[in-house]
Each structure stands twice: as C-alpha cells, then as structure tokens.
C-alpha cells in the first residue's frame, strides 16, 4: 500500500474540520509515500463510514482542487488548464452495502459528480 502526498494533505484538512478519520499511519500500516511532480491530484481510496461527513469531505476536496487551479493560474498568467484527478470514494450504507465512485479525469467533472452526490 502506498499513500500519496495529496491524500495525506486531505486527511489533515479533514482532521482540522473535526472529522474523525484515520490514515495509514493511524492504522499502523507500514506504507511509503508517492510524490508526483505534475499537475495531477491523486487522492487514492477514501472510505466514508458515516454519510454525515460527506458535505465536509466534498468541500475539502473542492478546496484542494481550487488551490491547485490557483497555483496553475499564477504560474501560467491566465491560461486555464484542466487538472486531472484520481479518486475512489467508497461509502458504507446503513445496510452495510458499499457504494463506490471511481473517477480518473477532469477535476471540474469530479466536482459536478460530488455536488450531485451531496444533493442525493
């Protein structure tokens, strides 16, 4: 198992929002970290055990994508390029069934999917 630097950042932001969450370190798993030098965001697999935290999770993911876009805009004057995002969200339902959303592509599309999920 490998953590990504983006997933570590996500976990920290969730903890700051008082969301109870655990990463590989908390689970005492001996895992290394992958670091990409590109515009891609790799958030890995996120297990959601309580749907109540979904709006905060979506807000935090939106912030990470937003920060990345701002950094890209700063370095390219005003040229907007698409940010690629890789994520898998597994939501454990009340009946203990798992709903899985996997996305590997445009960050803007991901945000639309997640916003839809929040409304459901």
């Amino acid at each position, binding site marked *: 198992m490998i953590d990504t630097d983006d997933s570590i950042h996500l976990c920290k932001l969730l903890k700051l929002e008082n969301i109870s969450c655990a990463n590989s370190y908390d689970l005492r798993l001996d895992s290394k970290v992958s670091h990409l030098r*590109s515009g891609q965001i790799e958030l890995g697999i996120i297990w959601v055990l309580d749907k109540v935290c979904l709006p905060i999770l979506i807000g935090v993911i939106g912030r990470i994508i937003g920060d990345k876009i701002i950094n890209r805009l700063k370095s390219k004057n005003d040229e907007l390029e698409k940010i690629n995002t890789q994520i898998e969200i597994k939501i454990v339902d009340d009946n203990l069934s798992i709903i899985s959303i996997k996305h590997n592509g445009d960050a803007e599309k991901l945000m639309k999917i997640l916003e839809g999920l929040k409304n459901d």
Partner: protein
Amino acid sequence: MTRKKQRKNQMDYIMSNGLKISKRWRNLMFTKKFSLANKLCHEFIQKNKKELNKYKYSNSEKKYYKLWRLLILFKTMQDYTELSQLTQDIMWHKEYKITEKIWDKKCDCTDRINTILDCCSGVIIDEILIFLSTLEEIFENEFGCGLYASPGFIIDKFVCSICLQDTRACTHINGRLYDGKICKNKPLHLQLDHISAVVNPKDKRCRIWPWNKKEDGTIEMCFLTLFAVDDFLSK
C-alpha cells in the same frame, strides 16, 4: 548614528540606486546594447547580494524581503536581456540548441516574474510580460503545446519541519505559517519510481524535444531540474 538608522539609510540608497540603474538598463535595451545591459544587472546583483545576507542574520525580515524582491527583479531583467539577445535572429527557432536554451531561459524568467508580480508593477514588468507572452505564442505556433517529462517518486516518509514528525502524524499544513516559521515537508529516502510523459507538467523545463530522439529509439531528455527563483543568490 545608530545601527538601525544606518541600515535604513543603506536600504534607501540601494532602492534609489536600483531605480537609477533600471533607467540606464532601459536605455541600453532600447539601443540593443545587450552585453552592457546584462553586465549592469549582474553587477547590481553581485554588489547587493552580500547586503541581503546581513539582513538575513539581523532581525529585519521586511527589509530582507524588500531587497530579495529587488534582486529577483534584476535577475528577471537579466533573463529578459539574454532572451532578447538570443532572439535577435528571427530564424532562431530553426536552431535546435538555441531553441532549447531560449525555452529554459523563458521558463526561468516566467517563474521569477510571477514571484514578484504581486508586489511589483511598472513599465519594465509590463514590457517583460508582453515579451514572454509573444515568445510563448511563437513556441506554440512552431512546436505545439509539447510533451513533458514528469517524474514520480517513492519516499519512505515526509518529515514536517515544524514538529519533525512523519507528516501523517501531525496536523501542520505544508506552506502555512506557524509562529513565524513556514511548514515544509522534507522527503526522507527519495527514490525515483517512474517518468511519465505529460502535457501538464509541474516543471516546463523538462520538455521533450522531437530532435533529441536517437536512431535506436531512445530519447535524451531532462526529467528533473533544481531551479529555484533565488538560486543565483547562493552561487
């Protein structure tokens, strides 16, 4: 005169001298005396680099960053001078090595000007920005958007510069200020995992140029640079 007052006068002198030199530099650029313009920037940087170190070790953070930005501006002007000289021949894009050199210099100049853009403005900045955007257009028309090498690394762990713990164990956020210190994540035992060809890289200096493809199918390319906007200050 107290040391504090001396430093204030010294800073005022550097700033007014910088203004005078920038006017002389513009005149030289206007008359296309690039070597002299380059020398002017180089000498200003060398002369004031030592002064910057004095502010670094005294408690004058504001003055340090004021001078730091001024030196970055002069390095940007020097980059622009070199770019102007390199692009004098309108057929420069037919020469592979010159094209690569101009591309790298353009990336350096762009990164530096973006660093000071929030706090600096004026004719010089506007001129450089227009030049860089024209150059970008030429590259796009001649060579397209390009493909870039982007390395991926596997790291044992990142260590937080604030609490010295594994970054997964603390709540400090990379890039934020904590009691006047910027939180930085330092990698421990870094290993290269792969190199990808991407269209949206972090470092545009790692561009893959078609003419660097050898007969056996291998491509010679740069996949990692150690560029920093202020790297010239430590040389």
